[in-house]
């Protein structure tokens, strides 16, 4: 089969969306099909530009090229999924949020004179696009719920597996909690540090990741000093994948409480490594996977609550082990794997 994977990009930025497209591309090819990524940059501001862009994508047609048909079109993002093709499926991470739940946000469309027009056009285009698709998938139940709520569109979550999923493993735990993530404001390392200052136990946390920006990492280090917890925090910086996997394996548990994340690769990696996850009630994607008091703890995003969850795990290793094992079983039950994903997409 010839498969086109269509997405949009912001040049020079590389994130989860690019990785997903590449992983999907590889997975399709490994199974003997031909696949190609179509990844087009666009300018979505101001609203006038957004409308022009939508029309531009609508004018593109990938039904066939040169010497034959393209059999399947997999659309990963708005407005890439507006491109025409007779056999489309979508696998989306989120809609164009500035026209939906972020309408009133600082960068939302509500502030643009043509914003309402653009928003209505996007809603209409999305409705059309979803009708055109053979099937619509999302990367999380969260996103499926939003599609249902805003557009009455039914969709099924298909969870992308983390890279190198097969390499994660579990070993007898040492005395540290692992917090793998870029040191960025939305990841809330400050919350972790404030919690650490309130724990009863002598909890230790190991952090791996670069500062994003660098200044934020410096700020967090200073904060640790000011709170008097610097001797209980390790800042590993960037480490290679193999080392990362090693820390997951020997951690007592994983701390991961970002603010409203799309997905939750860290959560999945923790589950693969059979480790309990400590997250927060507003963390977004991870909530789809963590089951409170079964595979980890979901705490209010306050230093007191987070401290209590850290103490709970630190004080009871058997509990940590049990919840970790349950996490692994939950991962396995969710059919998170490329075989299942391609079975659905390529149907």
């Amino acid at each position: 089969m010839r498969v086109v994977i269509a997405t949009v990009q912001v040049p020079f930025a590389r994130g989860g969306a690019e990785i997903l497209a590449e992983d999907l591309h590889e997975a399709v090819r490994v199974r003997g099909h031909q696949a190609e990524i179509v990844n087009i940059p666009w300018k979505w501001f101001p609203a006038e530009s957004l409308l022009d862009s939508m029309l531009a994508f609508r004018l593109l047609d990938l039904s066939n090229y040169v010497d034959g048909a393209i059999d399947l079109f997999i659309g990963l993002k708005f407005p890439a999924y507006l491109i025409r093709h007779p056999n489309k499926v979508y696998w989306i991470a989120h809609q164009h949020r500035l026209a939906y739940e972020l309408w009133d946000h600082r960068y939302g469309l509500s502030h643009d004179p043509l914003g309402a027009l653009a928003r209505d056009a996007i809603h209409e285009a999305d409705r059309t696009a979803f009708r055109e698709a053979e099937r619509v998938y999302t990367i999380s139940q969260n996103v499926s719920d939003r599609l249902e709520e805003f557009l009455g569109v039914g969709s099924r979550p298909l969870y992308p597996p983390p890279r190198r999923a097969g390499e994660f493993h579990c070993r007898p735990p040492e005395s540290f909690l692992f917090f793998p993530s870029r040191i960025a404001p939305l990841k809330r390392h400050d919350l972790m540090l404030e919690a650490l200052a309130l724990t009863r136990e002598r909890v230790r946390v190991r952090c791996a990741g670069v500062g994003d920006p660098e200044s934020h990492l410096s700020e967090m280090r200073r904060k640790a000093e000011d709170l008097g917890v610097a001797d209980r925090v390790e800042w590993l910086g960037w480490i290679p994948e193999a080392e990362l996997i090693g820390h997951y394996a020997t951690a007592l548990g994983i701390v991961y409480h970002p603010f409203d994340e799309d997905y939750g690769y860290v959560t999945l990696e923790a589950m693969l490594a059979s480790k309990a996850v400590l997250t927060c009630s507003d963390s977004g994607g991870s909530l789809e996977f963590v089951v409170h008091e079964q595979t980890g703890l979901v705490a209010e995003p306050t230093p007191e609550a987070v401290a209590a969850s850290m103490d709970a795990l630190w004080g009871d290793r058997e509990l940590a082990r049990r919840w970790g094992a349950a996490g692994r079983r939950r991962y396995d039950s969710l059919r998170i794997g490329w075989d299942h994903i391609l079975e659905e997409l390529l149907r």
Partner: protein
Amino acid sequence: MKIIIGVAQTPFVRQGSEDLAELLQQALGHFGHQADIVRIPFGWNPLERVLDHVVACELMNWHDHHGVLGDVLIALDFPVTLIRHPRKVVWLAQSRRIPSSHDRSPLAATIRDACREAERFALEEAERVFTISTLVSHRLRKETGVDATPLIPPPPRPEIFYWDRAEDFVLVPAEMRPPERLELLLRAMVRTHERIHVHVCGAAGDSVLGEIPMPEAKRRALEERIRWLGEVSVLDLSHLYARARAVLFTPREEPGSRAILHAMIASKPSITCYDSGAPAELVEHGVTGWIVEPDPGEIAAVLDGLWRDPDTARVRGMTARSAFEALPLDWEHVLGRLLGSAAAPTPESPTHATP
């Protein structure tokens, strides 16, 4: 600077401009810029869709992009040239058009006219317009009236090409388009008096031999003198060039120069045809090689000459090397032309990618 390199993308078909885009990206990185390659789907087939894709590109307005869409856009292909950008530089890698021989329908004529107008307008918006060879410049002027300076891209990995003592073969270093040009060579080989050997790189051409009617004995004898090498890595290619007696590259209207440039670097003479395009712009007949009519007899005569008079071949090869050194053909020069004088800061020493 952040630079976007734009190419057209025909799904499942690798473009020549893609190779150039990658080389350009590497060179820009070496000189301290950040470069990303951007691909816009486009094809001339089916004809009905061409105008839609052209309009789509015209609707892509990348002005006032707040730093998101690159400081400069270097467009290598139509219709990426149509995208609006405050700093657009064009370096046309090919002048693809609806082959007029293939479609004389009213629709084709309409599309040709529309594309011509669109391109003329878009090129006026560009800061600077270049092409990769005189051939492409001529075509562009003929189609749109726009004048564009040829700016030859440096070939890939020039530093690994070298001279060695010639062995008994002529090298065809890449696929020659159209396929009839390979057949031309085979017909020439049938006519040579000497036992000429050739090594042929590129996608399997042995099927072409099968299609030429000739007695079986003759075909088998000919097959013994040909080695079909398929796709060859650039490293292996450098060794082949080093040991060849000469390089033969006789496509029709080829826009790219690398096959001949590599020959010049390796101090080897080249054989090409008057209508070969960029190769014919680089070879100097009687000085650095031979330029002949696309005729089996003429090609055969040159091949025989290589065997009978190896000294001449050697001398022309050396002269080709001197000619190469006289060209201003390095990335510093090219980037300077593309980006204007502020373009090329001192190259950075190789750094490892920061995670």
